[in-house]
């Protein structure tokens, strides 16, 4: 027995501090545990953390201008963008020298496309100039200002040079401004013209529709989860299989099935026309719009709502409801005051799951969303695979990620994240 009244740290039998001994005893255990999770850690790092980091980086990365046109960037450093005139011969000579190298490396078109995102038309200017610049002799063919103006008069437009100057630093906020329907105008940050604004609308629509889908899933899923938790187990199992059935069917098949159901010549419209509820010439438009996306996505995401609700409801003993009734509560009061509050963690878990899945959903809106029912993710996919503006795609993705994190944080503040249970 050690002396209870001693004041210093508790000592082990060999006189060393007890904490030290404990740590040593646990170290082996910890090392073994670490070794077990190491493969997973490496996998997550390589396939999740690194790509996200890359995406975050790409959304601000802009070293292409500096790398491809190094002399030009230096030459127009001191050019006054507000002068209303193109820079002098020195800048054009530097540009010609840069072009000479860039054309050999075939990188001038890439800078062209990059700058074209900011000022449309630059891409073709660069391509045309590239063709000529190949044959120039830097010693004898000057002055290059005239040469460039010969190729296209637009080279004299200060707007082109402003763009090159503005995007010469290696880091840019251009993608993010673009993703928020804004641009770096002559007087700083400004909104794009109305007819070019699309992303804010898309973000709003994505949020709104995800919330609608989440709400629909709660309303449809709650009674099903209740039944699952309260039916005798034989019946509950059959019902559970029906709930899980969609998981065993390809997502594409399910979405295509909704196409068959909802289109104007589809099953629902045919039935309604046959019943005489809808005239043949005014068939309902239920697909390639928001309605179609909401219906199909609610169906697809419903199991993600039902399962967490079910597993939480399963843990609520039926005796609570009986107790409430024996205390004098009507069926409704017993449900609302006693059962429902205990099922909230399930609703919370299901809602977070469905909402986060919905906000980044891609395939279903692509197939049944038309133009009015597409999500921001469809736009991101477009920039990744068609317009090849990866920087913008990364910026949009980053905004989406941040939005989800903010909502998660807000949920934690309002409901409390420890109030979420998956079972």
């Amino acid at each position: 027995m050690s002396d209870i009244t001693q004041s210093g740290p508790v000592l082990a039998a060999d006189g060393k501090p007890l904490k030290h001994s404990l740590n040593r005893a646990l170290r082996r255990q910890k090392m073994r545990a670490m070794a077990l999770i190491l493969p997973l850690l490496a996998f997550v790092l390589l396939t999740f953390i690194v790509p996200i980091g890359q995406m975050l980086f790409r959304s601000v990365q802009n070293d292409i201008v500096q790398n491809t046109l190094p002399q030009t960037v230096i030459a127009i450093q001191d050019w006054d963008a507000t002068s209303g005139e193109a820079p002098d011969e020195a800048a054009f000579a530097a540009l010609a020298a840069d072009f000479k190298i860039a054309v050999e490396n075939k990188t001038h078109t890439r800078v062209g496309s990059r700058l074209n995102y900011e000022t449309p038309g630059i891409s073709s200017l660069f391509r045309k100039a590239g063709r000529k610049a190949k044959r120039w002799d830097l010693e004898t063919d000057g002055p290059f200002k005239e040469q460039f103006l010969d190729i296209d008069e637009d080279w004299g437009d200060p707007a082109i040079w402003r763009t090159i100057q503005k995007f010469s630093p290696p880091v840019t906020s251009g993608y993010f401004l673009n993703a928020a329907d804004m641009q770096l105008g002559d007087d700083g940050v400004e909104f794009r013209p109305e007819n070019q604004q699309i992303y804010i609308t898309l973000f709003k629509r994505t949020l709104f529709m995800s919330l609608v889908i989440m709400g629909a899933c709660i309303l449809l899923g709650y009674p099903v989860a209740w039944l699952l938790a309260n039916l005798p187990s034989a019946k509950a199992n059959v019902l559970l299989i029906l709930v899980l059935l969609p998981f065993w069917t390809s997502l594409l098949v399910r979405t295509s099935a909704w196409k068959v159901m909802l289109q104007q010549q589809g099953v629902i419209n045919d039935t309604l026309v046959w019943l005489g509820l809808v005239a043949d010439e005014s068939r309902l438009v239920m697909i390639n719009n928001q309605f179609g996306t909401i219906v199909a996505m609610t169906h697809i995401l419903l199991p993600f709502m039902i399962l967490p609700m079910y597993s939480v409801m399963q843990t609520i003993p039926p005796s609570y409801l009986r107790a409430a009734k024996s205390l004098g509560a009507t069926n409704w009061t017993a449900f609302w005051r006693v059962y429902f509050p205990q099922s909230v963690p399930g609703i919370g878990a299901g809602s977070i799951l469905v909402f986060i899945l919905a906000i980044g959903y891609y395939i279903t809106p692509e197939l049944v969303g038309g133009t009015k029912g597409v999500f921001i993710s469809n736009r991101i996919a477009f920039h990744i695979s068609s317009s090849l503006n990866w920087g913008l795609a990364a910026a949009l993705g980053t905004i989406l990620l941040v939005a989800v994190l903010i909502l998660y944080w807000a949920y934690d503040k309002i409901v409390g994240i420890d109030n979420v249970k998956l079972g």
Partner: protein
Amino acid sequence: MAASNSNDAFVEFERVQKSYDGETLVVKDLNLTMPKGEFLTMLGPSGSGKTTCLMMLAGFETATHGDIRLGGISINNIPPHKRGIGMVFQNYALFPHMTIAENLSFPLEVRKLGKSEREEKVKRALDMVEMGAFGGRRPAQLSGGQQQRVALARALVFEPELVLMDEPLGALDKQLREKMQFEITHLAHNLGITVVYVTHDQTEALTMSDRVAVFNDGVIQQLAPPDQLYESPDNSFVAQFIGENNTLEGQVKEIANGIAVVQLDDGELIDCKPVNVDKPGERTRVSIRPERVEYNKDRLSDGAHTLKAEVLEFIYMGDIFRTRLRVAGNDEFIIKTRNAPDQVRLQPGQQIEIGWLPEDCRALDA
């Protein structure tokens, strides 16, 4: 106790039957009458129909046939929340998302009582079970015994005249259970409430109740005060189920003057009290309580029948000695003797003679 006064019946079961599947009866033709203020325990093995009876009374199960009356009014068609019956559940069923005070306030809120009245009643109910300081806590922060008290207070706070308890002490450890047994009985008697208590623990039933209804196979086997139940069981099920019991099998030789002579299967004769045997030749099961068996010859009355027995095992249990004997071919014959200074401690292998008073030995159905 007003136990057998059936004129002012408060709770009545009349020819009640219950079936879940339409093929077998879980409760068969139940008749039961309880006066106001009685503490009645339904005792029986699991599946005997006792909990079903309680649930029918509470309104969570409907009787397939028959009438259940409360204060003279048939309650068959009254939903549970309008019956005004307090109930304590097996696992307390305290609402985990509410504090203790909110739990107690709940039945008062649904009865639309004013705030000050609610607070006063909650406080009084909590003080009654000595839990006054715990109103702000959550059920999960209380120990099992404390939760039990709160559950009791919640069932009593709206002042019901009838309180049902479904194995409320089952989850407590032995010491706490014994303490709560007394507290519940005292509380029930002080408040004058009528209690129907369900348990499968016979000690609990004997110590707490005014009357005990022993259930088996959907039928009340015996309904009697604890002492009667223990000392004069009506049939061999009750004898076996209540307390420890020795049985010897045999055949009735003759019945005369309230004494039945039974020939045991090894040929020996003993005197018994006939309970549900009525003619010679019948098979019977003779029941003797272990503590009524005597092996000290001096204490046996003259002319008492004795049987030869061999001591197989002697167990010292502190307050009593428990000795296992072989009697008439039965290796499980137990006798219990008080640990008194003059008591003989038997040795295994010893041959002794045992005996008993004829009225302690009951000839029951085989």
